[in-house]
């Protein structure tokens, strides 16, 4: 085995790939060759580090030096100074990795310090395309343990006692689901993995598949043993090409090594798996629509019961879990149910991965123990709101969730608390909004998404969400009436209570939660025809403040539709409202702050 004195980990997640990590790896290889360091320093392309905002990211070991926003031109210095001469290039380190002149290793950085990585433990640590590296980090040890030391019912018992709940959104106790599938009658059973992550801004499942694909292979084989299935399907979005590639490599490598296929570990247990590509319909993340899609049918939900555990893929009992749920399984097997149940809150055990986005400094992926407060995630880990703006709300649960205002920031995050606040855990999207976000516009955005993604099968969701969107459009255009708010509430109730699937039943949540917490904003739109956050174009007015206008004419020059009249040096300028397209160019151009928006 080759030994290296230094390991250079380069993030190869989707974020860092788009910001150019491939070029950086090529440059590193070139530089290492130039300095004849190829035998001393090893470059490893890993999965996502989580701090996407600071990408491309390089971490070197043994020092744990955390370079961020690395550019191709920086590679020469990193190689010469750090890798050759052993001097860390301080000015290229991540901003929080140098505190009062002292260099902090990656684990000591505030962003990572408060996280606890279970599902993401190998992401950003190993080369996801290497079976050996996965094995070196205890990979397939849990499968070995399960097959050689445990009976299927023991495995289910461990999952049950661990308190693991579905990470895809619903939060159903996973152990129960495993138990139902195991007890269901059928000559053939399947396990399936839901990797059809579709919430806007959510990318945790993608990161697990890109950073640690073998964990899914291992967990599904364990699940197969527990429920009595010999075949698994991973339903994954075709829009995740890196994840698809790496999972495909993992499946092939595992098969080659005898970790998938016939007679695994010589125990007589057979298990194999296949990838099914989704075409990007949001509804296919709903379990019964996903099953239809796997069968080659139109992605429309089926009525439940029968539940997939009884009649799933091709009407056979099917265990369907989400990527992040599976990613926890090998660790639970290895460390025990009590270890996992020791993390988190009374009813929500373990950790949860969140994709932080919106108005937040540290955009990226974080994994925290359940029970961490929203405030800790947003301020301590997420670094707070940029540009000194005030926090307004945090949206969790994607199009099925709701907006939580500042008063509730001290709420410990768990399934039940978020539901009590009118939101939900969802798959883990967390979008932060500041004072510049209009809550009516946010509700409209999510509803627009739902209308676009409704499968069209059931009446309340198909017709109802469309009408709700039309009302919201009206309100944001200043044509709303107070009775529209009642109509929204009434439609919401019908859609929630009568829709066929979970997507319809939760579709009104973004509207209901904003109506509940930010009703005054709706009322301002409807009664005063004003958008307090200054977002809704139709309700905006740009006006020149006569006392401040210096008659310079710069605004008129900048106006793209020539709707500002005045005489340079003589007359105060006036904006013709009927022609104004509300682009804001005048506001930006005025050197005297003589134009106001409102």
């Amino acid at each position, binding site marked *: 085995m080759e030994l290296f004195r230094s390991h250079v980990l380069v993030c190869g997640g989707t974020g860092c790939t788009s910001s150019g990590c491939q070029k950086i790896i090529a440059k590193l290889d070139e530089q290492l060759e130039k300095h004849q360091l190829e035998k001393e320093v090893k470059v490893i392309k890993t999965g996502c580090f989580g701090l996407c905002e600071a990408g491309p990211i390089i971490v070197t070991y043994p020092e744990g030096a955390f370079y961020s926003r690395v550019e191709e031109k920086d590679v020469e210095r990193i190689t010469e100074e750090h890798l050759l001469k052993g001097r860390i290039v301080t000015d290229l380190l991540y901003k929080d990795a140098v505190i009062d002149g002292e260099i902090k290793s990656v684990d000591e950085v505030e962003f990572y310090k408060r996280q606890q990585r279970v599902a993401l433990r190998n992401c950003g640590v190993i080369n996801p395309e290497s079976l050996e590296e996965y094995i070196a980090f205890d990979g397939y040890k849990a499968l070995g343990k399960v097959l050689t030391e445990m009976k299927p019912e023991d495995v289910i018992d461990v999952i049950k006692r661990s308190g693991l709940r579905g990470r895809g959104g619903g939060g159903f106790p996973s152990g129960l689901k495993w138990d139902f599938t195991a007890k269901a009658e059928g000559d053939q059973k399947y396990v399936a993995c839901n990797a059809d992550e579709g919430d806007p801004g959510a990318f945790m499942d993608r990161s697990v598949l890109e950073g640690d694909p073998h964990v899914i292979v291992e967990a599904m084989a364990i699940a197969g043993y527990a429920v009595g299935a010999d075949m698994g399907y991973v339903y994954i979005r075709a829009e995740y090409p890196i994840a698809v590639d790496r999972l495909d490599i993992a499946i092939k490598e595992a098969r080659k090594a005898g970790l998938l296929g016939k007679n695994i570990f010589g125990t007589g247990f057979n298990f194999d798996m296949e990838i099914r590509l989704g075409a990007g319909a949001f509804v296919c993340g709903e379990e019964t629509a996903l099953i239809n899609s796997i069968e080659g049918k139109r992605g429309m939900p089926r*009525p439940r019961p029968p539940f997939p555990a009884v009649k799933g893929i091709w009407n056979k009992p099917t265990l369907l879990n989400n990527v992040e749920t599976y990613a926890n399984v090998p660790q639970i097997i290895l460390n025990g149910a009590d270890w996992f149940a020791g993390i988190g809150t009374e009813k929500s055990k373990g950790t949860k991965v969140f994709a932080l986005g919106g108005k937040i400094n540290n955009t990226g992926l974080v994994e925290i123990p359940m029970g961490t407060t929203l405030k800790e995630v947003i301020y301590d880990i997420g670094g707070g709101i940029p540009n000194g703006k005030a926090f307004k709300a945090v949206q969790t649960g994607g199009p099925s969730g709701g907006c939580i205002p500042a008063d509730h920031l001290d709420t410990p995050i768990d399934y039940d608390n978020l539901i009590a606040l009118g939101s939900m855990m969802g798959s883990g999207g967390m979008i932060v909004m500041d004072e510049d976000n209009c809550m009516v516009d946010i509700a409209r955005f999510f509803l627009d998404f739902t209308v676009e*993604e*409704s499968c069209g099968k059931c009446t309340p969701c198909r017709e109802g969400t*469309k009408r709700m969107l*039309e009302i919201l459009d009206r309100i944001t255009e200043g044509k709303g009436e107070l009775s529209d708010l009642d109509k929204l509430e009434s439609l919401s109730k*019908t859609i929630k209570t009568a829709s066929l699937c979970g997507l319809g039943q939760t579709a009104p949540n973004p509207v209901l939660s904003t109506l509940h917490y930010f009703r005054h904003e709706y009322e301002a739109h409807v009664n005063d025809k004003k958008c307090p956050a200054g977002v809704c174009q139709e309700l905006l007015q740009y006006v020149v403040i006569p006392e401040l206008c210096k008659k310079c004419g710069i605004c008129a020059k900048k106006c793209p539709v020539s709707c500002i009249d005045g005489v340079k040096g003589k007359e105060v300028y006036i904006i013709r409202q009927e022609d104004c397209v509300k682009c804001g160019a005048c506001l930006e151009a005025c050197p005297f702050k003589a134009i106001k928006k409102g």
Partner: protein
Amino acid sequence: MKTISVTINGKKLQVPENYTIIEAAKEIGIDIPALCYDPNLDKVGACRICVVEVEGARNLMAACTTPITEGMVISTESKNAVETRKEILRLLLDNHPNDCLVCNKAGECKLQEYAFKYDVKFRQHDGERRQAKVDNTNPYIHRDDSKCVLCGKCVRTCNKVEDRKVLSFGERGFETHIVADYDNLMADSSCVSCARCLAVCPVGALMDARTMGKARVWETTTEDVKCTVCEYGCDFELLKKNGKVYAVRAKSPVEGRPLCLKGRLSVDLTYNEEVQVPYVKKDGKFVEATWEEALGLGKLLSKLGK
């Protein structure tokens, strides 16, 4: 079959354990409104008109797909269920042309029946509506997509016959509509005009083109007859106005009965006193034909010397 006990609208009854709520309710004469439900077809729970209140359940339950359980307490007309049903009907009417005065389906349209029952009216709105897209390219089938409520019965019944499977759903969300093959016109599709879809459509989206404008439902009396073209013996109705047969209509194709154009034309020719000229498809186009041609009798007749 084991029976279990349930309570529906305060009335306790014993029903076979494999019943759904809608089937159990039928036992005591309670007709739960439903557009997408058909005992002969797969249950899909799409229209949601049949939602009822079940004690202890978080949401309203679709009566057509929810299996009964021991001791279940169901209210089919609770305030919540009725309000929700009315709102769903209102949503359907919001997206339906207000032309019941001239619609051939008036009088036997399920949407009309339920709107009447629950006193739900058309209302003015500026929102989007389904596109009015009448397809009368098939001389036997009058298709009006603007009236479709997307119950999907036509798709399910069409898909029951293995080598047909012409109809399916196209697009999604508000844009969802029923498509023939690759969203072709009926004449350009592989449809064989068997009329299964006409027999199940609860509204005026799919109607028999040969009955259009002939009579109102309330002027019509019917008489049941059986087709004798093949051993299936499909059920037909003779539609009569003033005692005269003006059209024939295929009844719902129950299990094992395929329905076919030849059978329908035979019944038509046998009984209809105002029979219209038949059409056959030649080189992909519908053309007028003789009855010998339409019924494929040419060789037989010449052999019989007629």
